[in-house]
């Protein structure tokens, strides 16, 4: 017992001798004049001439990739059961769904390569895992790995960058329920012009087993031989993309894309996608009101698919306007439609004939790392009577997340 008392006395005694650790700074403590700050201020004024001082960053050197997790969860209610399908990641029935849980990691590997990973933990699948060259001459850049195809604007945008809860109708119909993607390689060139213009060519392995995701091209497993026999078998895509800074406040981006591969209906026949996209943005950075802005984005896609004894042509158009109302609010409006142009429709599951949808979304961004969204939809199509949908979505992002392309 005595030993215990002695031990307690020592512990208590030491606790008085050791200074208490700093308490977390409460908001009220901001009001106190920080003596350290005062001392530093006093020291710095005369020391301002000491230009030889060079203080390295306080952060210890880190070699880890930037890693982040992004969670999207949503709920929906539809006025009818036979409403339009909402596409990949979206809520397709009345109820709640975990839309996405993205694991994102990126880092420079060495002076020559960068590595980017985007893994979807909700419905476990790879969205993108790519190496990118950093040091090719002549404005060239190569990418390889599991790639999202740069077809139009929307296909390379991840769920957390969307302005709506659901992808566009043309994306789901012509590109993929997720992303038009696969294992492949890409070469792009930034042309030596006085303005930004890139040319990109992309080739994807056509095997379903390696992860080809496409709503328009058939996997090689369904061809006559079931294997790659020649250069006509892979899926190819190409894109030309120009950007014109009309002023400090106005930006115009124009793109045209094409993709070619095997028809999913007739082995060794062909399918082709053609697309055009436009993005016009006004953001008044020159007046200091850069939290405000308006952007118009539009995509058009035309698809030709050879079917037995025929060729089916369809097209689709989507146009949306995003308005940023200060740093914390955004309103988005979207109108879109798909139509059959020519040819006999053999497969309703793939072709689906005409569809129309209008959407409006209100997004609240309490910080740069979280958002809440309310969306209303009205849609109809052949085989679907007009139906309303209401969505609520929440998104949070944790960790070091990379920058987004314009």
């Amino acid at each position, binding site marked *: 017992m005595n030993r215990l008392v002695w031990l307690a006395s020592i512990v208590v005694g030491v606790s008085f001798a050791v200074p208490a650790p700093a308490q977390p700074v409460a908001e009220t403590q*901001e009001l106190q004049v920080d003596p350290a700050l005062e001392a530093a*201020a006093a020291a710095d004024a005369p020391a301002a001439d000491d230009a030889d001082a060079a203080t390295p960053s306080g952060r210890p050197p880190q070699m880890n990739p930037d890693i982040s997790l992004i969670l999207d969860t949503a709920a929906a209610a539809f006025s009818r059961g036979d409403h339009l399908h909402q596409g990949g990641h979206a809520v397709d029935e009345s109820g709640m769904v975990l839309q996405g849980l993205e694991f994102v990691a990126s880092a420079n590997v060495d002076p020559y390569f960068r590595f980017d990973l985007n893994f979807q933990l909700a419905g476990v699948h790879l969205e993108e895992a790519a190496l990118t060259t950093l040091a090719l001459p002549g404005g060239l850049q190569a990418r390889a790995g599991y790639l999202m195809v740069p077809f139009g604007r929307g296909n390379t945008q991840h769920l957390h960058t969307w302005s709506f809860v659901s992808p566009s109708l043309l994306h789901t119909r012509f590109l993929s329920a997720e992303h038009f993607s696969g294992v492949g390689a890409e070469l792009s060139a*930034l042309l030596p012009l006085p*303005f930004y213009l890139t040319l990109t060519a992309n080739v994807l392995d056509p095997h379903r087993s390696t992860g080809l995701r496409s709503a328009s091209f058939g996997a090689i497993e369904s061809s006559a031989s079931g294997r790659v026999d020649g250069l006509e078998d892979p899926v190819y895509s190409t894109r030309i993309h120009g950007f014109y800074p009309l002023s400090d406040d106005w930006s115009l981006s124009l793109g045209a894309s094409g993709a070619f591969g095997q028809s999913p209906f007739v082995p060794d026949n062909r399918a082709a996608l053609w697309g055009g996209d436009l993005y016009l943005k006004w953001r008044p950075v020159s007046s*200091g009101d850069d939290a405000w802005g308006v952007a118009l984005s539009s995509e058009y896609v035309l698809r030709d698919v050879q079917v037995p004894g025929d060729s089916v042509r369809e097209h689709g158009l989507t146009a949306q306007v995003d308005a940023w109302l200060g740093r914390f609010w955004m309103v988005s409006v979207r109108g879109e439609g798909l139509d059959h142009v020519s040819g006999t429709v053999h497969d309703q599951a793939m072709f689906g004939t005409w569809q129309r949808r209008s959407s409006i979304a209100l997004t609240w961004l309490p910080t740069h790392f979280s958002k809440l969204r309310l969306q209303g939809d009205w849609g109809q199509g052949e085989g679907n009577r007009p139906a309303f949908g209401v969505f609520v979505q929440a998104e949070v992002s944790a960790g070091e997340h990379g920058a987004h392309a314009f």
Partner: protein
Amino acid sequence: MSPRPRVSLLVRVTAALLGPSLLVAVPATAQLRVVTTIPDFAAITRELGGSRVTAEALVKGSQDPHFADARPSMILAANRAQLLVVAGLGLESGWLPVVMTQARNPSIQLGARGYLDASQVVQLRDVVARADRAMGDVHGGGNPHFYTSPAELHRVAKAIHARLVELDPEGRATYDAGWTQFDARYRTKTAGWLQRLAPLKGTAIVEYHKSWVYFLAWSGIRGVGALEPKPGIPPSPAHVAKLLAQVAPLGVKQVWQEVYQPQSLSKLFAQRSGATLLILPSMVGALPGTDTIWAKFDRMVDAIAPR
């Protein structure tokens, strides 16, 4: 399928995309092409390098550098740069990485001599041992707004001078002359600014965002609170009311904020506290007539300590 019309369409689209190139003038070639993220570094580079350099800033002084768009025109500028000067500390992390990756320019990547992280030569403030988003949008490595302090920009200028000489040794005479002139002007101007600000030493001010900690430390003026409850978290009426009560005994004289921050709550706070709301140019070009760092600090000092 009939390919001919589609090829024709592709040719027309390509022509439409290429067409504007004929209307854009090609800039004259300079000895050294420098691209900087914020305009202060570009202004300094122009003073040091004169006609031996071209210096272009990716964001404007009136723009919030945290939230710029990664416009492809930035990629084009970075592609042609021989030196990229960044603030670092995560200030540009929302847009610069994609610009650097897509620039296809090994000369300006991290670790190359054409990449200069200005924060590496700064006496950092607000360095936190552990950063967590619950603390707001904190920059763990330190507060990145060091460009509000003349002393820190002087250090950055010295580093830019050294890098210009390293990348373009033939221009050493020009850069040395530029540095000598810059340094002399800095000393003269700093003495004048500090003299004007001396009576305000110890004066209490409130910031909107913690953008001014370096200027405060340099001038001896006291920052006693921020309208943002945490960095990057917008001020709420409740927080502003609480802050009003807390700073009342301290006699806050001024509220400082940048041009791109909303002003409604700042005005209310200033009105209720009896302070003056000052919209200050934190970066070169943020306000008309602030196209050099000298003009920027002249404007700041004029606003803070009117003659």
